[in-house]
């Protein structure tokens, strides 16, 4: 019987004792190994011969550790209930391979589990335990470092961000007279928070949002600090990072006295800021937060902007981002918005909370070592897309945009990826 344990393994076990709360404990205990989740995971469907992708099997990698140290049956008869501790750094690397490389925390298995086992939540916790002892994919470490140091995931400097806003304002000047992208305006009705990807790779979405706010006559602003609503703490399981990243945005809202925070299209960013952030930061925020999907939809409903769906005539389908559909309940509003701004909207099957992950969830896009696995599992999504016959797949998440674009290239699909803001902006009657 082994008794020698590496320092990191020792620390990970200590941390587990601190981090397991009642919800996690119940998810760790309640699994009856019925296998109902198995064929609901895109990794399993794309790798039918490999049982290590089965959600219950992935969950067991942490479950056996929990049972070995925190469950009396596991302590009494470990072999009987499948309890097993970790001893070496190599075993920690193997755990990392499972929790980072074989699961996107999409929560599809959680929603089909008859027992209510929330694998996605405790897989995130397992990631956090590993991150605590410095075991994580290199890309995860790099992105987390950027978010800690600069407050955003993509290493965007403040100057770069402000210059991009000015550049977009200039771009729009000829088309929209009097359009201004306000920064740090006190007492605005809306504080608009964005994804750093918009600054780095897709600034047109900032311009499009600005045009929508302008035409709607919104009293809005952006912040010079705490402008990033994304949060790598959700992906790497680090609650402290989650609290810090979300806290910067909450501070900005309080500092500027904003009446509402509007979060641009991003599944994990919305979930982190709106749902998880207050819990991580241990504070009640007191400022309403909404997704820009609702903002745009309300502008149309209230007649604050006019749209002409003829301008988006190509067949369109919608990809429900996991974090919006399965963790935030946002499924109907994007559809209402799409029906208002395009002519031919067709559902992907399955959809809403049963939709398959784009395969880029859980920070997968930052883990290049797992890209071949990710793209193989993407065959499920590719088939879903192909079956719609749509020419445009719309989503409400920048992360999904990248993952979908990647799989579209890989599987040579004749389809284009867009965000809702692209379609709304295109349909707007000026």
């Amino acid at each position, binding site marked *: 019987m082994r008794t020698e344990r590496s320092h990191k393994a020792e620390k990970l076990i200590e941390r587990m004792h601190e981090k397991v*709360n009642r919800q996690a404990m119940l998810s760790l205990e309640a699994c009856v190994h019925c*296998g109902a989740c*198995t064929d609901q995971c895109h990794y399993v469907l794309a790798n039918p011969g490999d049982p290590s992708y089965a959600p219950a099997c992935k969950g067991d990698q942490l479950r056996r550790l929990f049972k070995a140290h925190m469950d009396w049956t596991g302590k009494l008869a470990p072999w009987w209930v499948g309890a097993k501790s970790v001893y070496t750094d190599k075993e920690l690397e193997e755990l990392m391979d499972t929790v980072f490389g074989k699961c996107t925390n999409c929560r599809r298995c959680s929603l089909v589990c008859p027992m209510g086992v929330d694998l996605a939540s405790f897989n995130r916790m397992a990631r956090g335990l590993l991150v605590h002892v410095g075991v994580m994919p290199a890309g995860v470490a790099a992105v987390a470092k950027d978010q800690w140091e600069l407050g955003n995931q993509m290493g965007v400097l403040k100057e770069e961000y402000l210059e991009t806003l000015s550049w977009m304002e200039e771009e729009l000047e000829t088309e929209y007279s009097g359009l201004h992208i306000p920064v740090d305006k006190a007492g605005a009705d809306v504080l608009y928070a964005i994804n750093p990807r918009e600054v780095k790779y897709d600034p047109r979405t900032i311009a499009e949002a600005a045009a929508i706010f302008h035409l709607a006559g919104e009293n809005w602003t952006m912040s010079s600090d705490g402008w990033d609503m994304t949060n790598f703490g959700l992906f790497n399981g680090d609650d402290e990072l989650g609290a810090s990243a979300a806290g910067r945005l909450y501070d900005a809202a309080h500092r500027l006295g904003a009446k509402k925070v509007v979060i641009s299209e991003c599944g994990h960013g919305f979930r982190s800021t709106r749902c998880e952030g207050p*819990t991580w930061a241990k504070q009640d925020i007191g400022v309403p937060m909404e997704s820009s999907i609702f903002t745009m939809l309300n502008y149309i409903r209230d007649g604050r902007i006019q749209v002409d769906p003829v301008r988006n005539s190509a067949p369109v389908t919608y990809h429900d981002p996991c974090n919006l559909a399965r963790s935030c309940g946002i499924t109907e509003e994007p559809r209402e918005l799409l029906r208002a701004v395009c002519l031919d909207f067709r559902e992907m099957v399955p959809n809403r909370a049963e939709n398959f992950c784009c395969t880029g969830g859980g920070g997968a896009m930052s883990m290049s070592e797992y890209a071949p696995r990710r793209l193989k599992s993407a065959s499920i999504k590719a088939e879903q897309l192909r079956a719609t016959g749509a020419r445009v797949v719309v989503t409400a998440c920048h992360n999904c945009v990248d993952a979908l674009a990647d799989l579209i290239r890989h599987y040579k699909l004749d389809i284009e990826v867009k965000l809702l803001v692209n379609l709304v902006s295109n349909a707007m009657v000026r």
Partner: protein
Amino acid sequence: MHELTPLLKFAEGKLQIATLVFMALVYVLKIRWILSFPAGRDRQAPAGASNAKRGVAFSLLAIAMPWTLASFRQHPLRYAQFVVFHLGVLLSIVMSLLIPYAPRLMRAPHVVLGLQAAFGLAALAGIFRLVRRISDRSMRAISSPDDYFSICLLILWLVSSAMAAPNHPKSGELALLIYFFLTAFFLVYVPFSKISHYLYYPFARWYLGRTLGRRGVYPLVRDHAH
């Protein structure tokens, strides 16, 4: 009235009470253990018209609404097995109380036949579940000795339930003795095995329902067109 042998009298009476008390004690300790873990708090503001209560109700009842769970909707036979198997187990628990305390309720031949049919079908469902666990590679990968032992034991218990259901000690007590000793073993073993999952079920589903209800995920909205 046939006089029971002291062994059967003991198996039906004192043994059952002692093991039931033992099980209850272990469950009290288990619930204390569950409650010793701090409950994570949800600080997010409720989303729209959603609320935690509706989410909890949906979460707890989802098991009875197979159309809401894709895993059951796509495998109706597995759901049927699940229902038949658990119904058989429930009826056997009830029978272990009826035989010693209200045998009159089991005198009608159609009641006995009905019970035997339920136990037989449940045992058959158990065999299907066991075969799947053994033959399916991904099921083998997630199965522990406790998983195999528990299902074997339940199948055996259901078969013994079918044999004991006529409750005719004068034509031989063996079936009743096997049934009651197995029941006693069960009562002692269950709290330490996966069979005690029903204790976790309401807690796990309550917390999941509370979180997802507050966020507007539960009750799930489905696409009925497809």
